[in-house]
């Protein structure tokens, strides 16, 4: 898979179509985001399946937002999985990245990862490498919904009570781009104190994920307290689909009708 991506990136860089390719690189024994610019460093390019599929995924769209804002006329390539592509579409629709500044280079996720993610679409529409895996439904959501309401409420209160308020779920989120965050508003809560207001802190974030969350699952992976945030946001996405008949990133890149959630206009 890596070789196909490398060839594609080499071709894009040589043609001058992109100024750089935002992907992952293994350096100093670790895998992290890296902007490839000249093609000489492509040897270290990896796709984020180090010891097991998807174990070193990063919110590349979040870094891409910084890069395209820092260079508003430049066009950049970016490594995308199914979730990243959904993210890009949503970020285009909400005016956070301009589509003409991005060339996605797609890879399909292996079945193991699609299973672990319970991913509805574990592949991007356009892909350079990988075979499309079977989609999976939200078994974790079904499991929680099978519980009685008061039992469910106790479960979430117990989960949220583990929060150390690191803001990691928000910081890692490729769809969190507001310049002012409600979670840091003094009227909302006591910002510097612990524990986080339970359940207000996490339910507020969950509601803000409506129409945004593209189910990449990075919040779940970043949580030092292992709070199953992904399950919560999957349910939010189900509700959004039920009520507004859309699921972020699955349809056209345009903002879906009835769901006009826009962040700040892009300041270029």
């Amino acid at each position, binding site marked *: 898979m890596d070789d196909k991506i490398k060839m594609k990136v080499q071709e894009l860089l040589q043609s001058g179509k992109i100024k*750089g390719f935002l992907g992952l690189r293994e*350096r*100093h*024994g*670790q*895998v*992290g*985001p*890296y*902007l490839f610019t000249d093609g000489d460093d492509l040897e270290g390019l990896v796709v984020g399946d*180090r010891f097991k599929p998807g*174990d*070193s*995924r*990063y919110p590349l769209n979040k*870094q891409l937002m*910084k*890069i395209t804002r*820092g*260079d508003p006329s*430049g066009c950049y390539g970016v490594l995308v999985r199914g979730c990243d592509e959904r993210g890009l579409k949503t970020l285009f629709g909400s005016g956070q990245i301009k589509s003409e500044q991005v060339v996605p280079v797609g890879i399909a996720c292996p079945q193991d990862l699609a299973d672990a993610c319970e991913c509805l679409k574990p592949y991007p529409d356009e892909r350079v490498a990988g075979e499309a895996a079977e989609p999976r439904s939200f078994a974790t959501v079904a499991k929680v919904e099978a519980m009685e309401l008061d039992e469910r409420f106790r479960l979430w209160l117990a989960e949220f009570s583990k929060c*150390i*308020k*690191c*803001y*990691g779920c928000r*910081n*890692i989120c490729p769809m969190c781009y507001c310049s002012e965050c409600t979670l840091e508003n003094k009227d909302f809560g006591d910002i510097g104190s612990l524990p986080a207001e339970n359940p207000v802190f996490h339910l507020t974030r969950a509601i803000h994920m409506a129409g945004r969350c593209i189910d990449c699952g990075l919040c779940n*992976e*970043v*949580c*030092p307290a292992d709070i199953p945030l992904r399950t919560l946001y999957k349910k939010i996405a189900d509700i959004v689909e039920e009520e507004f008949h859309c699921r972020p990133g699955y349809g056209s890149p345009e903002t879906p009708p009835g769901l006009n959630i826009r962040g700040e206009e892009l300041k270029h």
Partner: protein
Amino acid sequence: MEYRTVLTTCTYCGCGCGLYLEVMDGRLVGTIPCKTNPVNEGKLCVKGWNVHEFVQSPKRLTRPLLRKNRELTPVSWDEALDFTAARLREIKEAHGSDSIAFLASAKVTNEENYLIQKFARAAVGTNNVDHCARL
């Protein structure tokens, strides 16, 4: 526009979480936890997440300050060190070695922490050594 990620270690405590600093045109613009680092496995605490902020903070001390007439005044390293050495000696002679304590830091290297405890024990003669994680 130049964008780089630099792999480094969090300086806030002794855990040693791995992270990438995002550098754009020579300025630090963000922190990304390293997913493959065995210490933190892609997670960080609230301090680690904001580690890029203190480096360029205008509040950061960049030169020695000495309180003169109640005002903190910038002085040379020589003046600061001479003053500190003289006062430490006076205090030690007047009140004994154990009237002095040394606070080391998780934000500096092992070698620097070794030096401060060596200085405390060998030069000043006290075991009063503690560190920032207990402050």
